[in-house]
């Protein structure tokens, strides 16, 4: 995978397959590609069975815009070498993805929905990890307290800590119930929860039986510590992209997602209306801002350079053109580049920047770099 194969490598395999000398095979492969090159020069087209067709395509002149200055310029026409893969080879290469098929999309599916589906698929995986992390860290905190209770020096703390531990367990049980009510649809998670919960029970019981089982407890502590470490690492990796606010909606929507998998793309609009409304508001606001920023002719009547990187924000100063000076020279003086003449010309409504009479009073615009 991802290795670079050279002519020598091909020649080596060829020599083995055909019983040739290595240098013979190598020269054959060289001549093979030289002939492709020659054929391209002759007919501008070479077709090789099983590989594909090389072709020379002429590209016309086209106009483009310098992204820094907004100046228009033409990209000259040139020849381009195109390669069309042979159908057999195409299918062979695409074999790992051959089982995918083009799917019709329903009318009401929008791009946002598609992204959401992708996003949520990723999040369901995170969900388990976060649950894992949550439980293991809780269990460890309980375990730590157990460790202190096992310390024979202060019995008082021992007595104090047992209720605390049971309290914690209750909290845990509550949170489990909470999850159950939230998420009746994903049985794996419940199964996943229950062994941990039962571990908790056994742990709590163990605290009541003193130091005879301290070794076993120690082993438990180690296990829990490892679990916490794992949870922490996974959490660090995943948590950055995980939004707490989404968490409960995700748990709610697990059923919906299952349906989604089967119907490919069908989203229960009702459950997302609020979100999509918010999204729409946000995008509307963005659009408004963008329109203000990038419009060619804003409301205040200041002309802008279309496609330019800078925005004309106001008048910087006025300048009277002397004889022998052009706008390009002025632009170099004010902005450091002759190409910026375009901005002065646009601001002063000058059509031909090279033909401006001496004595013309020019308004030099104040420029601001557009930020995207």
């Amino acid at each position: 995978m991802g290795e670079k194969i050279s002519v020598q490598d091909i020649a080596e395999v060829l020599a083995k397959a055909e019983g040739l000398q290595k240098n013979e095979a190598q020269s054959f492969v060289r001549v093979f590609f030289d002939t492709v090159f020659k054929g391209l020069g002759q007919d501008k087209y070479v077709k090789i069975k099983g590989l594909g067709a090389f072709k020379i395509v002429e590209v016309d002149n086209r106009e483009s815009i310098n992204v820094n200055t907004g100046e228009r310029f033409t990209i000259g026409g040139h020849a381009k070498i195109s390669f069309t893969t042979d159908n057999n080879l195409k299918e062979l290469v695409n074999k790992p993805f051959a089982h995918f098929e083009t799917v019709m999309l329903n009318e009401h599916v929008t791009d946002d929905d598609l992204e959401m589906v992708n996003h949520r698929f990723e999040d369901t995986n995170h969900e388990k990890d976060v649950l894992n992390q949550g439980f293991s860290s809780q269990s460890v905190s309980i375990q730590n307290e157990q460790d202190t209770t096992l310390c024979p020096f202060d019995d008082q703390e021992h007595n104090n800590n047992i209720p605390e531990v049971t309290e914690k367990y209750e909290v845990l049980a509550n949170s489990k119930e909470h999850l159950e009510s939230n998420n009746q649809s994903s049985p794996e998670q419940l199964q996943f929860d229950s062994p941990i919960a039962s571990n908790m029970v056994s742990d709590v019981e163990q605290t009541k039986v003193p130091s005879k089982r301290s070794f076993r407890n120690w082993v438990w502590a180690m296990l829990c510590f490892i679990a916490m470490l794992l949870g922490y690492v996974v959490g660090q990796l995943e948590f950055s992209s995980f939004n707490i606010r989404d968490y409960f909606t995700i748990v709610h929507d697990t059923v919906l997602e299952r349906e989604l998998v089967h119907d490919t793309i069908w989203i229960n609009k009702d459950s997302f209306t609020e979100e999509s409304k918010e999204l729409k508001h946000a995008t509307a606001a963005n659009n408004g801002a963008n329109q203000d920023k990038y419009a060619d002719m804003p409301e205040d009547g200041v002309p802008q350079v279309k496609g330019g990187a800078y925005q004309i924000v106001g008048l910087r100063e006025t300048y009277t053109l002397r004889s022998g000076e052009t706008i390009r020279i002025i632009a170099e003086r004010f902005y450091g580049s002759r190409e910026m003449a375009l901005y002065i010309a646009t601001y002063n409504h000058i059509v031909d920047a090279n033909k401006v009479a001496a004595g013309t009073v020019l308004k030099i615009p104040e420029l601001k770099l557009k930020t995207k």
Partner: protein
Amino acid sequence: MNNKEFINELSTTLELPIQSVAKLVETTVKIISEELCDGNTVSVQGFGSLEVKKKMERVMVSPITKQRMLVPPKLIVCFKPSATLKDKFK
């Protein structure tokens, strides 16, 4: 230049019979396609390189029916001509 002309051209330059050249071409193509299937890049100095790229899935609109479709991801072979080859055809 089609496949037949290509093989003829090769056999005249190499001074080998057409049949054996045809066989050699077939094996060479087979080797190249096997390497490509393994996800390797075949690069030929002074000519260019053939490599496999992954295209992401995308939403396409059929120009006839205006029906939107989700096109699956796919692996494609693409040819990147070398600088020397590009220069020669400029």
